[in-house]
């Protein structure tokens, strides 16, 4: 079965054409949380990096990112980073030490034996607060420290809004079946 990748504009316009043709079809949607260190602060565009500037610094895109202050990454088991820690090295852009979790969102539609899909990653939103924390490095009585939290984006902003006559099924995984019947 052929698999065709679309961008958002193409995917939505294809759905519109299907709707206008009165063709019956089903849209599948997969939203999965990933935390595989795919995105780190060095490779973010400036606009996104600005959201982290309270705790880290860099010269420009793809430059090494250092911690400006000690902070705790609440999402990753309260991992502690020291001041001037190397968070994302310019020499190892594929392997950030501090990474951003994200949702992988995939929309697909199967029609006439082909699968047409549109996929994107949605970054979690950072929130930086100052909290009193205790621990081995912060002392028994505790100390004020910057804390990085991540909140997932709302589903409504991830969704491709479709008219009510379009049925959307949520799926966990799609298994591709190879059809050999045409070989005989």
């Amino acid at each position, binding site marked *: 079965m052929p698999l065709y990748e679309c*961008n*958002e*504009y193409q*995917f*939505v*316009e294809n*759905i*519109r054409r299907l*709707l206008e043709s009165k063709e019956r079809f089903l849209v599948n949607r997969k939203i999965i949380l990933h935390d595989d260190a795919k*995105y780190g602060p060095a490779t*973010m*565009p*400036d*606009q*996104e990096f600005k959201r982290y500037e309270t705790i880290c610094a860099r010269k420009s895109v793809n430059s090494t990112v250092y911690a400006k202050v000690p902070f705790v990454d609440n999402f990753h088991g309260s991992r502690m980073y020291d001041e001037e820690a190397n968070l994302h090295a310019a020499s190892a852009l594929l392997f950030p030490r501090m990474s951003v979790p*994200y949702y992988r*969102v995939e929309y697909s539609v199967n029609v006439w034996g082909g699968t047409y899909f*549109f*996929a*994107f*990653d*949605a*970054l979690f*939103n950072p929130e930086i607060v100052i909290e009193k924390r205790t621990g081995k490095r912060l002392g028994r009585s505790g100390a004020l420290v910057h804390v990085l939290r991540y909140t997932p*984006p*709302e589903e*409504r*902003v*991830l969704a*491709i*809004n*479709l*008219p*009510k006559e379009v049925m959307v099924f949520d799926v966990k995984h799609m298994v591709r079946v190879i059809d050999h019947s045409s070989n005989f």
Partner: protein
Amino acid sequence: MKGVQKLKSISVFVPLERVQASLSEIGFLLDDTVTIIADGKFWNRMLYVRGGETISVSEEIGDAYPKDPIITICGSRMTISKVVKGVGG
């Protein structure tokens, strides 16, 4: 409103400010934003809402040129034609 909803996506070579002004003029309010990565590029995806109608606007982040925001409308035929006209489509 939900019963007469139509779908339309357009990609236009107009500045985001003009798209936002056009949506604001017809009563759409910014509801939420998210940073997404698609086609290997970072995009700012904005959701605008008016009643049961929704419009999402995705614009590439950074100094990319030319900028062509993708506007996806799920709303009435009238809303679609107003948006398309408003952004010069």
